[in-house]
């Protein structure tokens, strides 16, 4: 379970990879990684769920909280790589109306 941070070469967008779970026990790590990047001046973020197992309500909550902060800074946080089961979690909670959700990172890059 770990989070990776990299910059997309051509666009300069920050891509955060969620490897494993995004849940109550580790969501603070993701939050601090995004906050660090915001402090460093980044405002465009993609969260890549291609290697994610599951997300709980705390994980959804931290995404909401981060999206608020990123938008306040004039940027956006776009979600990518969600499989059908993970996407269902966003649909059930109606958070699919709050986030831009794209199939792949390449698609997500064009969402900004």
């Amino acid at each position, binding site marked *: 379970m770990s989070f990776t941070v990299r910059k997309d070469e051509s666009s300069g967008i920050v891509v955060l990879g969620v490897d494993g779970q995004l849940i109550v*026990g580790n969501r603070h790590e993701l939050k601090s990684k995004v906050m660090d990047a915001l402090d460093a001046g980044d405002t465009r973020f993609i969260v890549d769920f291609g290697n994610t197992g599951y997300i709980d309500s705390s994980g959804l909550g931290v995404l909401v909280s981060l999206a608020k902060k990123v938008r306040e800074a004039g940027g956006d946080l776009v979600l990518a790589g969600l499989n059908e089961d993970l996407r269902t*979690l966003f649909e059930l*909670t109606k958070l699919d109306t709050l986030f831009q959700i794209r199939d792949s990172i390449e698609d997500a890059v064009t969402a900004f």
Partner: protein
Amino acid sequence: MATRHVELSLRVPTALDVVEEAVDLVARHCVASGVSPRAARVRLRVALCEALANAIVYGNELDPSKRVDVRVRVSGVGVTMDVTDEGGGFDPSVVPDPTTADRLMETDGRGLFLIRQLADEVSHNERGNAICMIMRHH
């Protein structure tokens, strides 16, 4: 496939960093007992994760002297998971819907809602410190 299954009980310490381990253990057991890997991957894991987090944070109020008990039975019909904490309980009927427009930007309050959406049946004991979730094989 044997109809009689191993019945699993876990005594989980009041610590959020063991939630993932407990959830994994239960999910792997369920798959070994015939639950579809697809159902176990997200649906079952998220429901159990929510129930455990609530038991640890709200039920046991992070008191390390307390424990959470989990009991899992797999039958031909489905999986039954009981999660019991040592807290005073709560009234599950007053938990508001987190999907209304005024609550959509809230960071909390989606746990019980997700459990109710993901499980086929959810019930609580009278005190409110035990939740029973049933997920039927589809």
